[in-house]
């Protein structure tokens, strides 16, 4: 995968699994079809740690300024998300101007979506003790100290300087995709 050759690439680490009653395998199949239909994937998510305009978009622009890429890296986990199916009808890049979800895209039970290029299988190990948080109030924190408990996603970069020593914390990455413009969007339904 390309980012292995890009030491300064930005990563959005996300724990993934069953969501809104849909198995992860089914989500993958649906999202691969979405890419064939629409040319991009809207990967739904929630929570506050990777807010579209406060975290993902600024992080992506920061990387773009340096001609670096940003990737989503997925760690598969057993999750127990309650079965609901609310399908987003509109999306917005800035939370102000809204437009219909593009034809061929379906995002379920999510407040936000990260916009992806083609999904690729990966079999990678990432040591979080070598990464640091790249945006937000925890800026600069060692990623292995940050991704704990309720925090299940983060915008991180590999540290170019020595970090406070932490024991290795390896994350097994099963799927990867490049994050593409507009990087992350808000979702809503009526």
């Amino acid at each position: 995968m390309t980012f292995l050759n890009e030491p300064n690439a930005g990563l959005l680490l996300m724990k993934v699994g069953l969501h809104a009653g849909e198995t992860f395998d089914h989500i993958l199949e649906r999202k691969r079809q979405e890419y064939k239909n629409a040319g991009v994937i809207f990967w739904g998510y929630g929570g506050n740690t990777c807010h579209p305009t406060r975290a993902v978009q600024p992080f992506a622009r920061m990387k773009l300024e340096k001609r670096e890429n940003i990737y989503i890296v997925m760690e598969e986990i057993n999750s127990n998300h309650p079965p609901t199916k609310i399908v987003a009808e509109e999306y917005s890049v800035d939370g102000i101007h809204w437009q219909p979800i593009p034809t061929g895209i379906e995002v379920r039970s999510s407040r936000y979506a990260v916009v992806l290029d083609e999904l690729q299988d990966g079999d990678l190990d990432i040591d979080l003790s070598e990464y640091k948080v790249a945006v937000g109030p925890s800026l600069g924190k060692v990623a292995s100290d940050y991704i704990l408990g309720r925090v299940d996603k983060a915008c991180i970069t590999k540290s170019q300087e020595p970090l406070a020593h932490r024991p290795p914390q390896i994350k097994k990455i099963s799927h990867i995709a490049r994050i593409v413009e507009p990087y992350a969007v808000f979702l809503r339904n009526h």
Partner: protein
Amino acid sequence: MALDLREALNTISDVVQNRPSPLREFDQIYMKVGDLVIQSEFIARKFDGLDIVFIGDGDAISLCTVHLRQKEIFRYGPHHITVLDFDERIVKAVNHFAYNNDLGDKIEAVLYNVCDPLPECYWRTSDAFYTNPPWGASNDGKSVTAFVQRGIEAAKPKGMGAVVIGDNEEVEWTGQVLFRTQEMLINAGFIISEMIPGLHKYHLDDSPELTSCCMVARDINAQISYPKSEPLPSAVLDNFYGRNSPLKVRYVKDRSGLNLGRAHDSSYELIPLEGNQ
């Protein structure tokens, strides 16, 4: 001061119940309730008998202070508070609460965004200012200094200010922002007369250990003439909520309609009991 903790918490609970839900995109991250009591008591004592302007107030420290004084849980408190906030939900919540609790002569909220010049009617009219701004983690504190600037413009000569910002020795950026804020206050003729480090915690799920300090500054320069209030420069607006995270919204418009303080109609649906239509 000895406080009846149960009474204080129950009284603050009235205010908490009245607040709109926080919007994370604008750094509306609410202080934990125990710390609201501590902070309100400190401000009521420090600014006893003074006219204060709040430059933004999502936490509702202003309302807590006057409500606790009104209920005689505090024996001191400010003479009058003006809250300037860009979120109409907050403005309406403050004025609605004041009306319902007979506090109309003690507190008033007005819609205002710090990107605009401070309206002339507030220039150098308050004894003190208070602000808990977006903390400027990745914009070198530009959002903090923008709010503090408006506070300085609102304070009378020899006035005071209280600034609540991130402060945690283990979080490097907080020290840098504190340094810039103190530098700005000192350059404006203030001294840092008091600082309580690491005082408050917040409902911040991804950084629950992040604390803020309360810094009190006092104008010793008493500069009579002060430059006119100007719009914020574009360099500040472009990175207002962090690097590459610009300020794009002038106001948050309230759309609660008749649902002020209650769940919005669109957030639930009533399923009738069969046979009892």
